[in-house]
């Protein structure tokens, strides 16, 4: 990372810490903000968070790896999470997943070459009455068909 990039990231994290407080209890909101802006929390960012909250970097890493929606490795600009839990599974998650994979040319767990989309499975999204469901970043889409899912993803920038 370039020095200028590092400095601006530091500044950004400092602002988040200012907003949420320089305590361990602010860790989740701070990490969520970084994840939202950058789609992952880089090694440098983790150490900055640790420094500002006065905890150990490994504690930050430990927390990130615990939660499905926090990442320590780079992701695409958009993260798509298709629900894989029971009712979505019964109602057609598999064919939706296959259609998406075909269309984007990558498998779940991977990121498109243009870095546009990372595909992931998620556990129950709480949309069981309207499955299959998926999240595109923080937006939820329900009653998916293969066609509809692909159409939604094609609009994602």
């Amino acid at each position, binding site marked *: 990372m370039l020095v200028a990039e590092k400095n601006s990231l530091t500044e950004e994290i400092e602002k988040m810490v200012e907003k949420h407080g320089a305590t361990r209890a602010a860790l*989740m909101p701070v990490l*969520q903000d970084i994840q939202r802006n950058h789609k992952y929390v880089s090694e440098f960012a983790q150490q900055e968070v640790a420094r500002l909250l006065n905890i150990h970097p490994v504690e930050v890493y430990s927390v990130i790896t615990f939660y499905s929606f926090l990442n320590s490795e780079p992701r695409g600009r958009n993260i798509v999470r298709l629900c894989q839990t*029971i009712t979505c599974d019964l109602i057609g998650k598999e064919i939706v997943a296959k259609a998406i994979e075909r269309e984007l040319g990558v498998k779940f767990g991977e990121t498109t070459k243009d870095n546009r989309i990372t595909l992931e499975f998620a556990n*129950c*999204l709480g*949309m069981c009455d309207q499955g299959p469901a998926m999240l595109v970043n*923080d937006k939820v889409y*329900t009653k998916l068909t293969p066609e509809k899912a692909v159409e939604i993803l094609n609009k994602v920038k």
Partner: protein
Amino acid sequence: MENKKIKREGAVIFSEYKRGDSINKLKEISRDDVLFELKESGLKGRGGAGFPTSTKWMLTAAAKSDKKYIICNADEGEPGTFKDRVLLTDYPELVFDGMVVGGFTIGAKEGIVYLRGEYEYMLADLELYLNNMRKDNLLGNNIAGIDGFNFDIRIQLGSGAYVCGEETALIESLEGHRGEARNRPPFPVNTGFMGHPTSVNNVETLSAVTHIVLKGGSWFRQYGTNKSTGSKLFSVSGDCEKPGVYELPWGTTISELLEKVEAKDTKAVQVGGASGICLNKEQFSRTLGYEDIATGGSIIVFNKDRDMIHVLKNFMEFFVEESCGQCTPCRIGNTKLLEGVEMIEKGEFTFRYINELKELGKTMQVASKCGLGQSSPNSFISILNNFSEEIFNQGNGGTNGK
């Protein structure tokens, strides 16, 4: 996205309510009155554990501390549960007013909503709603003109971890840790968020409180049964014509519910989500309620074409991923149960080993550190027991791949 504000029918939760009514009621009544009505109502926690709400609030109110917290557990993650989503999107007044009542009763100045990360899309609307409450003096200082009653609510997001629905794991997460359940005792009512007395209540519980404070404990009691007072929200999904959230009095039978949601050719009903139990046809006369099947309200319907081993595998995969991984029985136990399911799927098992796994399941139920590992074997044991004919004797077991 779902449609805005569908008019839903229900005797208690979905009965008429206008924002602020129960908060304004606090002008006339004391903390003790609230606790009395709650006790009278017989309300039990709606998340699934069924702990009496009045007791929880009484203990938190009685605990000595300069700070106390009320936390709304909106980490609805149990597969097949989505009632809290409906309450938060369509009935936020019930949830937030209930939190204000809770703050008043236990003596908390701060309420925290732990909203699951999957529901982040609601965040902006909820924040707006809270802001309006502040404008109308339903939050903030001297709420509703009650001298010295200061209380506010903030929302903190989860980040995709089912186990954070367990109240001590939730508190750990709020404090910036991994969502690993704490040792109990101490209970949060004594040592909760940041070590202070804390009441963690489910979204639906708080919504019920809102009505009870206004309409009285005995009004609530008239619904349901003796031991299971009031009504319950059921999240119904799976093989039925009308999935959705239903408010039904406790005591409703499975068959009655199936009829209501227009389920046909039903073979199995999973009550309580992945951590609940799976019933076969012979058991559909059983009733929903603390007397028989206590539940957080997740109902998943399976019709005759569903492969129960496939269903069970989905559940066990869920638990293997969602176990926090700290205690031995849950971390390794669930992987062993999943391996067992895969053995059955491939037809490479012995009955002796499967029986050993059922025994392991029973150990997990009593030996795991928190509710996750204590309940994850439920589906394993109940599906293998209640559908043994299909799984082991009708050619499915062993040739399940077909």
